[in-house]
């Protein structure tokens, strides 16, 4: 039995890729009854039917072993419905009739065509919160535009300042930061609406543009322009007001460490370790941040002369023990070297029907007194069809009929 903060809430999630699914998993972590309405017979983006780089080892269908799908779908039940069919449409209506939150991720306008726009949903359940998470929202000239998280990043100005200072955009890796942050924004939106419902006694609709959910997080990008008419430059890891503030080589090939000293005290600790104690004395130009900013290159070279003698975790340990900000640049396998994460039992081992026991990353937070638990590994397509349909009042005969007429399913055709 895990955390019960959201116990009693019923969440219907009909989204793909990451921001929506991860949000729903986080709600499941906190005790909500989350039902994922899986696309059927079309398989979702994260359920490919042929192997790819993210396919996990094991037997069984490829679409049940995609890591990108597993990453965003724990702690949910799964029902696979073709909502274009009459029966499928009725099943979704029943699901929504007593749900607290409905999260949908179709392109703008699509859900209305399927008969589940806000006006329709409101009639089914006036108390429900419905959240649409189209990339640019449901209104505006871009509402029909399609994108993934990398595209949203490009249009917030974030991509324009990521990357190597001397590089070009072609060297900058697309990222999925909007997915990583979008889940918590959707989560917050859902609970804001539920708290409002306690007063208003009625449901609400939320138009959550994932672009708007991302752009508020970058105030410095906009302000450089609006305050000082400057377009922020790509600075790599540099900070114009902090020296040192960078990433340095370690003794291992292509392994790195971050080092920063934000004030004179941290700087003094660093000088001791890199054998430049005189650089922290009042007579030396680098004892002042003003001098350090002018001497960035020489300081970086001195730090790297030190870090190149050590493995990253060891160097970070030495520096941290002297009050210096430092961390190894962790690769995925390095995560297992962190005594901290082991001490906190962060990693989880889950058992899935087709992959067997696998180690995965842990939760985003820990809670007392009722800690989180990974109660439901990523569900199979339609794994809970029968269980959920019986809860909705259907009998076995009817359920069998749904399978026969294609309203529901529990596997995809390859």
């Amino acid at each position: 039995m895990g955390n019960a903060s959201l116990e009693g809430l019923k969440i219907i999630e009909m989204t793909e890729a990451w921001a929506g699914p991860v949000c729903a998993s986080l709600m499941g972590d906190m005790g909500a009854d989350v039902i994922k309405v899986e696309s059927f017979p079309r398989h979702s983006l994260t359920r490919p039917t042929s192997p790819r780089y993210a396919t996990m080892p094991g037997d069984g269908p490829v679409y049940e072993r995609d890591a990108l799908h597993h990453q965003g779908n724990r702690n949910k039940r799964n029902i696979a419905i073709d909502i274009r069919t009459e029966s499928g449409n009725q099943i979704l209506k029943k699901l929504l009739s007593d749900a607290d939150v409905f999260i949908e991720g179709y392109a703008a306008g699509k859900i209305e065509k399927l008969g589940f726009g806000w006006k329709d949903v409101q009639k089914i359940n006036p108390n429900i919160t419905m959240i649409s998470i189209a990339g640019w929202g449901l209104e505006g000239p871009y509402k029909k535009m399609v994108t993934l998280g990398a595209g949203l990043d490009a249009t917030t100005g974030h991509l324009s300042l990521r990357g190597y200072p001397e590089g070009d955009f072609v060297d900058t890796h697309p990222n999925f930061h909007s997915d990583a942050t979008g889940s918590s924004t959707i989560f917050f939106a859902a609970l804001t609406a539920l708290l409002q419902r306690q007063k208003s006694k009625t449901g609400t609709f939320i138009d959550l543009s994932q672009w708007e959910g991302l752009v508020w997080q970058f105030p410095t990008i906009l302000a450089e322009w609006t305050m000082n008419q400057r377009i922020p430059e790509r600075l790599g890891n540099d900070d114009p007001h902090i020296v040192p503030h960078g990433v340095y080589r370690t003794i291992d090939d292509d392994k790195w460490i971050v080092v920063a000293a934000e004030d004179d005290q941290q700087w003094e600790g660093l000088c001791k370790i890199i054998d430049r104690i005189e650089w922290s004395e009042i007579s030396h130009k680098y004892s002042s941040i003003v001098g350090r900013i002018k001497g960035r290159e020489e300081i970086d070279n001195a730090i790297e002369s030190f870090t190149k003698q050590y493995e990253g975790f060891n160097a970070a340990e030495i520096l941290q023990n002297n009050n210096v900000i430092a961390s190894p640049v962790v690769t995925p396998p390095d995560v297992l070297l962190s005594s901290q994460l082991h001490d906190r039992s962060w990693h989880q081992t889950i058992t899935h029907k087709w992959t067997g026991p696998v180690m995965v990353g842990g939760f985003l937070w820990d809670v007392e007194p009722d800690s989180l638990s990974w109660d439901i590994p990523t569900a199979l397509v339609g794994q809970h069809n029968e269980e959920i349909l019986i809860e909705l009042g259907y009998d076995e005969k009817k359920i069998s009929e749904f399978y026969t007429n294609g309203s529901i399913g529990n596997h995809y055709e390859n």
Partner: protein
Amino acid sequence: MTQPLDGLKVIEIGGTVSVSAAGKKFADFGADVIKIEPPQISEVRKIAPFPDDIFHIDKGAVHLAFDTSKRSIVVDHLTNSGKEIIQRLGSKANLIIMDIPAKEALDLINIFKDGDSLLTNIVTITPHGMTGPYKDRIENDLTLFGWSTRSHRHSITGREPLRYGPYAGVVQIGSTAAAVGMAAIWGSRSEGMSRLVDVAGVEALMGNVDSGFFLWAVNGALQPRSAGQSTGLYPMGAYKCKDGYMLFSAGRDPVYSRLCNAIGRPDLSTDKRFTDPVEKPKHFEAFKEILEEWLSTRTKYEAFDELQEKGVMCCPVLDASELENDRQSVHRKSYITRNQDGIGDITIAGPPFRMNGLHSDAWQSKPAPSFSQHTNEILEEYGYSKQETIALFRAGVTT
């Protein structure tokens, strides 16, 4: 109409970027957010840019954006007198969010304990969590990103790993804390139990998507550290057009075929050089030449409109000067301009989600408070006499 979170009281302690980001959504949606700032000036107030590059405690861009709609009180939480103030404020709060060193956080948690019970919900934000051998380590946005595995992937093999934009990591951590804080509030309202939530920055970043750990853990895959343009599955990444760059996510069908049709080269969607997974990487340069030739006659907005019309996932790469006037931003009023005392008009991002209608007053951005603006007001509200307030000031607990 009242705002959705009217009636909620949230206390924010620490003055960091993370905790300021965490409190922002609560405040803008109507909660009474009291920002307890240290006498030594909050981190969030020190961050550039400043108007005309003249630093000022009340004019930093991050403070102006993240501290909207809050009240500011200065309290030294390390003193017993300061802890007494925090205890009085916190006992009436629905949630306390704090981003201070673990040992200081533990001291404050203890004043809200009644035996095994907690008197209010508390979310702690620390780099590594409240327990474990690294709990007292000092980190910043750059090192937290280094820990998250995301920095490593955001680089080219052999070259130094890179962070994202400034403060991207710590803002994500703050946003995570806000979400779980809401869950704690909901839980205590429905079942009467307060919770203690431990948000470790490293875990919040590493446990979410965009981290490479999950993928490696479950199938041993290490994502390539290649340049932005994928040479195996393309077009993915930024490509040059007439006046800038376009970002494509069009490497897979059916989007790839739509692109081929849209640029007048439907043959490319069946040409084995560009569709066979073994052959495709060998012909990246040839494809790039074709695509960039098409793009070279179009501006990024022309290409965006033309390609999106055909269902191709692509977006213009915008810089800071282009954000406010982007058509979508203008239509939705995604940025707002409002008056800030001592500065005049400033522009910040609008609501992160639209509730009760596109332009409802569910979200309201009131000016960010000046340093200690509400210290007297809040102390009086919580029962301190004027002489007691002076005594606290005289003792250096407030300022």
